[in-house]
């Protein structure tokens, strides 16, 4: 006699309850993670989006003889503290470039001081009451408004928040990552090819394997120390430069590329290797003509993710001096530079409250680039993934 269904169902009830409970718990965990993500993004957007706008005011600029000596004299005294000092400093230069300006007086939209910007955005500002009254009057006349902040995307760092931009750091990141890619991609891929396709399976290669896997888990600041000790102190690579930053990050990215390349190589079926050996390919021909092309999408994905990781890295770059104050957008591998996360780090430490939105704005830019990179990785994998 076997058990009737009802009896079995009764016994099963507890098991079903348990799996239902687990399902709810895991959905809860997912929901919580999603909530944190939404909160984080919302916070960043609320704090960071204002950074993409900057206050400008319309004032009378007097290109007088005196102004070419003393730029402050170019604007009337009551609006003087409201105009960005960085803008005023440019006036003598502009007068030299355009002599016809001399002696004229024009109404111009000029970059406002960072405090005016904060005041217009409704944040706390250090403006005095009288200055606030002037700003209010200008705003009422339509002579003070928030406009898109091109400065943020075209200039380097500045101590004046209204002039601080992300461009120098972005350029530094590009140069640094180029160095990282140029160093870690070929070395990483060839190392993986050797380990996976050529190396005999013995104690030595096993030891190397274990060490590579451990390398991927080492705190990144240690790579910074390594970079400092080897690249700067031993090889004399100039500090704070994209070269040394890129080399240091390459050390960090190597294990990621090696591990992902090995996984990609291992996923190529052995039947392909046998087919190639069977027609008389040498080992290198097997790898070059058959295994590597099949493994390429996986290798690319791993490398892009490794690079994205390197791009978000700050700690090792602090050690090699890439947290520098870089006001000019550079273009050289051997000049001092900074990178996006280091720029964010620098701004986060500024006492002026106007830098809070710069910090968040920088994070938004960094996130946008990271998401783009990761999306590229996904698209490439989908595009080149071939089922054979």
């Amino acid at each position, binding site marked *: 006699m076997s058990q009737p269904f009802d009896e079995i169902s009764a016994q099963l009830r507890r098991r079903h309850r348990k799996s239902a409970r687990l399902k709810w718990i895991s959905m809860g965990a997912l929901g919580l993670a999603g909530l944190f993500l939404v909160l984080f993004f919302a916070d960043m957007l609320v704090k960071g989006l204002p950074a993409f706008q900057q206050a400008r005011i319309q004032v009378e600029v007097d290109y007088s003889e005196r102004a070419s000596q003393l730029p402050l004299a170019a604007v009337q005294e009551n609006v003087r503290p409201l105009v960005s000092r960085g803008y005023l400093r440019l006036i003598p230069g502009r007068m030299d470039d355009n002599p016809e300006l001399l002696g004229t007086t024009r109404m111009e939209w000029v970059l406002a001081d960072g405090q005016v910007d904060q005041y217009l955005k409704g944040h706390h500002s250090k403006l005095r009451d009288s200055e606030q009254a002037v700003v209010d009057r200008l705003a009422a006349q339509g002579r003070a408004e928030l406009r898109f902040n091109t400065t943020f995307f075209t200039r380097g760092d500045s101590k004046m928040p209204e002039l601080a931009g992300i461009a120098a750091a972005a350029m530094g990141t590009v140069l640094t990552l180029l160095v990282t890619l140029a160093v870690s991609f070929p070395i990483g891929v060839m190392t993986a090819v050797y380990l996976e396709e050529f190396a005999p399976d013995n104690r030595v290669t096993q030891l190397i394997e274990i060490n590579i896997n451990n390398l991927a888990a080492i705190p990144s600041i240690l790579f910074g120390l390594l970079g400092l000790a080897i690249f700067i102190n031993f090889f004399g690579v100039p500090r704070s430069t994209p070269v040394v930053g890129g080399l240091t990050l390459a050390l960090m990215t190597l294990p990621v590329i090696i591990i992902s390349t090995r996984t990609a190589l291992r996923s190529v079926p052995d039947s*392909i*290797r046998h087919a*190639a050996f*069977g*027609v*008389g*390919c*040498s080992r290198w021909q097997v790898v070059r*003509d058959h295994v590597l*092309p099949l493994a390429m999408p996986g290798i690319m994905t791993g490398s892009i993710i490794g690079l994205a990781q390197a791009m978000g890295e700050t700690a090792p770059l602090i050690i090699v001096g890439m947290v520098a104050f870089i006001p000019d957008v550079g273009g050289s591998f051997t000049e001092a530079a900074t990178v996006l996360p280091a720029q964010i780090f620098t701004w986060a430490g500024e006492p002026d409250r106007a830098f809070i939105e710069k910090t968040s704005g920088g994070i938004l830019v960094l996130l946008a680039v990271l998401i783009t990179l990761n999306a590229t990785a996904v698209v490439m994998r989908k595009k080149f993934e071939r089922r054979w």
Partner: protein
Amino acid sequence: MMNIQVAERSVSPMTGHQSKGEPAVGAPVTRNEEAHHELAIRVRDLNLWYGQAQALKSINLDVYQKNVTALIGPSGCGKSTFLRCLNRMNDLIPGVRIDGLVEMDGRDVNEAKMDEVALRRRVGMVFQKPNPFPKSIYENVAYAPRMHDLVSRKTDVDELVERALRDAGLWEEVKDKLHQPGTSLSGGQQQRLCIARAIAVQPDVILMDEPTSALDPISTATIEDLMDKLKQQFTIITVTHNMQQAARVADYTAFFHLGEVVEYNDTQAMFSNPHTKKAEDYITGRYG
């Protein structure tokens, strides 16, 4: 068809190996009348170990040119391992140790001077599962000849691809889609593509490791017909689990058991009148 003279003495490798000049113990003693008698591959006292386990024990075997030789036997008897000795595919497996002679064209294939790439250029291989390259049909065939510098001009390559595909009986089916991926073909077509790929470099010997075990009966029959045709040009050695297949396609059959060649003979003689009890039991389906 059974009027072939059957040898008196039974063939057993267990009587010990003999010096190189004398006929091999494992050699068949009767032959097809029309068969070729020149040796393609001479194997003497071949032993192979996977680590500690001995997989081949003192194999003696003569493979004759332009014949189909079938290797049969139960699973794990060493027939595939033996096949891979002939083009040194066992080199790819770590921990394999080989001693003994595998002689082809007067050279020991295992000698230090022998380049395994050169060997595989002359000893092609077709695998159990069709494994075309993840390239176009055309490229699958053209790749190896180009790599070995047999052809370089585009028209020569075109010609060679067509000839190889015709020889493999695939041309008519694929001539309009040469640039589609090889894997878009059916299993049987893929296997014929693999055969075309193997014969494209004009090897002397083609090794086939259970070439039809992944195929349906119709594709199997096509491949068997093909083997019959190809033996005009090539020496074919095939491993098969299918006794009927061995009886249908092979001129000679070697029965492997536990790493030894128990019996090696003319196929018709082997199937009509096996000399050993083991072979008889296996052939009649009592085990295996």
